[in-house]
């Protein structure tokens, strides 16, 4: 039985010649992860790519195996949240969002409120967090926009937040302002008076 299992995983490795770049022990371990992922219907290309990335970067076999295992787990989490019909690109973007701090519930909510593909929405979510926006604020913003906004709208939203941050706004506030506008920016409000990041009347004597 052990021999059969070994032959099986080795066969996967042989089937994809790109894995020849891995040392034999690592190749067997990575092939096992690939085969396991394939068995449960997860995309294997991202896993193979993650292994190849490790090779190029001179990572040890142990690090490569740990990375592909972690990715496989994250892909599984993403698939559970987004559903079995999720495309490979969506799952990869979902993994990026999860690692940025989004929760599986956020992904599931996004799936419920927006028609696929979700790739751009998920990428925008990950981008916002990478910009320094707190994960829950970024998730709330994307979820609020998701039902109606087009992909281009989401990209523009992210750019608008970028512009606000460029002008000195804290990332969380920039997102809230862009999403809620009036909540932080309403003229004559206490919030406005205390917001150091809006130029309004800054230079008034």
């Amino acid at each position, binding site marked *: 039985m052990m021999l059969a299992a070994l032959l099986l995983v080795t066969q996967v490795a042989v089937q994809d010649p790109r894995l020849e770049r891995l040392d034999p022990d690592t190749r067997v371990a990575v092939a096992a992860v690939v085969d396991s992922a394939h068995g449960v219907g997860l995309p294997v290309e991202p896993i193979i790519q993650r292994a190849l990335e490790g090779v190029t970067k001179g990572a040890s076999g142990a690090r490569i195996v740990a990375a592909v295992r972690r990715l496989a787990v994250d892909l599984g989490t993403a698939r559970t949240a987004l559903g079995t019909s999720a495309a490979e690109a969506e799952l990869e*973007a979902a993994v990026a969002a999860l690692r940025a701090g989004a929760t599986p519930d956020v992904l599931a909510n996004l799936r419920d409120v927006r028609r696929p593909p979700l790739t751009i929405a998920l990428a925008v979510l990950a*981008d916002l967090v*990478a910009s320094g926006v707190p994960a829950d604020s970024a998730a*709330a913003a994307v979820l609020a926009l998701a039902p109606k906004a087009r992909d281009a709208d989401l990209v523009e939203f992210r750019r608008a937040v970028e512009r606000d941050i460029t002008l000195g706004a*804290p990332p969380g506030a920039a997102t809230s302002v862009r999403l809620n506008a009036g*909540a932080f920016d309403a003229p004559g409000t206490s919030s406005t008076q*205390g917001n150091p990041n809006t130029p309004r009347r800054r230079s008034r004597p």
Partner: protein
Amino acid sequence: MRTLALIGLACGVSVHGLCGQVTANVEAGITHVQYDGFLASGAASISPTMRWQHPAGRGFLSARGTYLQFQSGRRSLDGSANGSWFTPLARHWRGELGVAAGASDYASIASFSHGQIDARLHVMDEDRGGWLAATLGRSSFGGGPRPVTVLAVGAWLLRDDKTMFLSLDRSFIGDTAYTDLRSSAQWRRARIVLEGVVGARVWSRGGGRGVFGEGSATLTLGRQAALVLSAGRYPTDVVSGSLAGRYVTAAVRLGTITIRRPPLPALPTNPHASGSNGSSSMETRLEIRAQQDDEVQLTLFAPGATAVEISGDFTDWRPVPLRRNPASADAWVASFRISKGLHRINVRRDGGPWMAPGGTTRSADDYDGEVGVFVLP
């Protein structure tokens, strides 16, 4: 202010995650002002500001001071602080509870102080919303404090890079009462922000009346600098004790302003993530242009490099040398077949370490390094 300074200090030495939520800047400028009933005067101003934003976006604390030195030799000192706490967004609703306090002094002749509590209810949709607000507080000018009550209602509309507001508030400060109707618009593009406010004070008893309007332009000059030009007329604020006046001001703002490169064409990459926080962006910048079918041209700007390689999931992570662009010594180009979706990329120059290029979203790569992430829509 002391508390905020302590928060900033604490962030600086121990709570790295919060530091991204602290901003501070100083604005220095010259102004020409004429307060109602007074002669026109020139003045120099300096105004430090500090703000702390809750990491989860649930609130903020802010403090600001202004020192004005007039031509006459007299000076004005003003300080204020406020904070707000926001409830989580519940479908279209969000609550806000805020506090504010401030004090001002003009040449040891006139001194004001005030403190207030605000409650606000926001309703918001994707690109529009409104709010209801009530404020209770005290305002003091020399003698005993006077009660302050303000009721306000407002609406906002977001259109692309423009934001428009309309608000109506009724203020009661002791025996004084007035209503302000205000409309404003804000337009942002690249490094410029233009903003205008017009309004009218009506139904006034002791608070003056008339129309007012202000405009400002902010131009980001550099990594931590911006030029601010503003002018207009504003009404008396009985709560904080600011007199109505006309002014023209030019100021330079120095502080936490960061430069971003313009967004790349057709790609939702994140210049900030790798553009302003890491050294890699200082050395390389990637532009991605989709061509026909899955053909994508990558252009890497790497000033001073003698060799540039690229590696990514679209090369099966095999390093591929780029060729120098004949038209630009700093630009290196290559074309690849790249499918739609999320992609990971690294670059290296002159055989150095693999880096996430500027113009992509920088992310940890599982191998103690960084990888650039971009999406082809």
